[in-house]
């Protein structure tokens, strides 16, 4: 037993020493860039960060999530070098700077089995406000509509409300969701559901055979192409936020992220690159 105890103690000691020795090895040589914020932007930022790292030696880009509001507050407090926000800055955040790196359109989706092919603006408003409650009233099956709404505060919700002129207190949903994937899986599993999610994600999933279809808005098809050409009306910006004019590697990173060099990365995440 004593031998085993000594062995264990040695292992722990070595481990601890290793852990501490590896802490800040070449502090002066490695520059770290910390981004925090929106989990929507995070995968994109991480991929851009990896490409940036491969082009710049001794730079580490660390991406953390926590939500758009965290991204903004961390940028302001200096806890992060750059904040990520999947929305435009609010009025009381105008002291910060934002740089849009991509767009994310919002599309209304229905289950593929739903015979309804198109809905006009007023119908959508009435469905979400609870005035139309059966698909029969808009030319579909005799089934109650399952309204899927996004959780409060989310930028997708804000844009949706703004475009349709609704207030969140007007909406009477049956299901409230958080992330896009949850929205898609909810609509896939329910033939009478209606919801709204990111255009790119919906297009991809539909292309992969998921049982959803995207509704056109005011006659314009919901597609990444149309968001890119700005003909599709509903979209939100994906922003990098800084406290002050960016300098050093933060500046380089933002320029890199805003350049055409990362267009393929943006499209790989099913967002829309901004025409430059």
């Amino acid at each position, binding site marked *: 037993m004593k031998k085993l105890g000594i062995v264990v103690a040695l292992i722990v000691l070595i481990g601890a020493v290793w852990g501490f020795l590896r802490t800040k090895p070449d502090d002066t040589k490695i520059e770290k860039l910390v981004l925090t914020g929106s989990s929507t932007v995070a995968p994109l930022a991480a991929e851009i960060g990896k490409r940036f790292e491969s082009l710049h030696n001794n730079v580490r880009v660390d991406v953390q999530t926590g939500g758009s509001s965290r991204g903004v507050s961390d940028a302001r407090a200096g806890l992060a070098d750059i904040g990520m926000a999947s929305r435009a800055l609010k009025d009381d955040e105008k002291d910060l700077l934002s740089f849009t790196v991509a767009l994310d359109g919002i599309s209304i989706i229905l289950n593929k089995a739903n015979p309804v092919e198109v809905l006009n603006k007023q119908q959508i408003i009435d469905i979400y406000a609870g005035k139309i409650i059966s698909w029969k009233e808009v030319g579909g099956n005799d089934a109650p509509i399952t309204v899927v709404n996004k959780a409060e505060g989310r930028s997708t919700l804000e844009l949706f409300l703004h475009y349709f002129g609704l207030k969140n207190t007007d909406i009477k949903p049956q299901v409230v969701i958080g992330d896009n994937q949850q929205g898609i899986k909810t609509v896939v599993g*329910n033939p*009478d559901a209606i919801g709204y999610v990111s255009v790119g994600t919906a297009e991809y999933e539909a292309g992969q055979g998921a049982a959803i279809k995207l509704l056109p808005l005011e006659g314009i098809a919901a597609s990444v192409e149309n968001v890119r050409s700005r003909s599709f009306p509903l979209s939100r910006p994906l922003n990098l936020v800084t406290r002050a004019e960016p300098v050093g590697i933060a500046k380089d990173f933002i320029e890199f992220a805003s350049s055409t060099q990362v267009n393929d990365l943006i499209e790989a995440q099913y967002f829309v690159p901004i025409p430059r």
Partner: protein
Amino acid sequence: MSLSRADRQLVTLLRGCALLAAAIVLLILLFLVKESWPVLRHVALTRFVSDASWHPMDGLYKLTPMLSATLYSTLGAVLLATPLGIASALFSRYYAPSLLAGCYRRLIELLAGIPSVVYGFWGLITLVPLIGRLHPPGVSLLTGILVLTLMILPTVALTVDAALAAVPIAYLRGAAALGLSRWGLISGVALPAARSGIIAGIMLAAGRAIGETMAVLMVAGNVVQQPLGLFDSVRTLTSNIALEMAYATGDHRAALFVSGLALMSTLLVVVGTAELLSREPQHD
């Protein structure tokens, strides 16, 4: 019983460790109060009960439907998981042949480690459509309870299993010598002897159920309304925090921490009551 000097030193060390647990709870409470302060400064506590609804963007902060949802889903899950968990433990201890029992126990241990997001995801793509065929839209209090039951069952099963293992074999032999049937032995001797272990298991499982965030979020519907039926779409306090924290600023964010405080207060009341009502376990 007087302690030797070595023992006394041991006790001092141990007391320090034990107080650490209490200290963590205190720290968490302080943290919640600190983060809730911005909204508590100008919104009276009663408004969290009396406001018309939960629409923080419009300054409405009614928490009670979500509190009810939390309580109902926890209660439902504990009611389902306790008998199933105890049955599982009895199965692996007294009924199954030892190879099967070992495999079964392994299975349960594995299930204790499956991330909540996997349970939630599976619930979303498998359970929800199934229940949706029964009663649309499929996301409901019932689905939430079912997923929670799955998640806390391993806790009950494993703790009860350990408690049963600790029942002195002399008891069991004595019971067998008296000619008790297997069920008689279990119900009359083993279970009562393992009583405090079973209660500990239920408390831990209940704690897990109350604190579960991710899985319930995906299957319960998240509509803020008072649950009036099993098939109603509900939102628990924890799901609420998880759903809205990412985009909440200022008062909204602080209000979410208030809901965290509400949960802690409920916990304190429940645990305090349970502690006051509990009796000393039987030492033989």
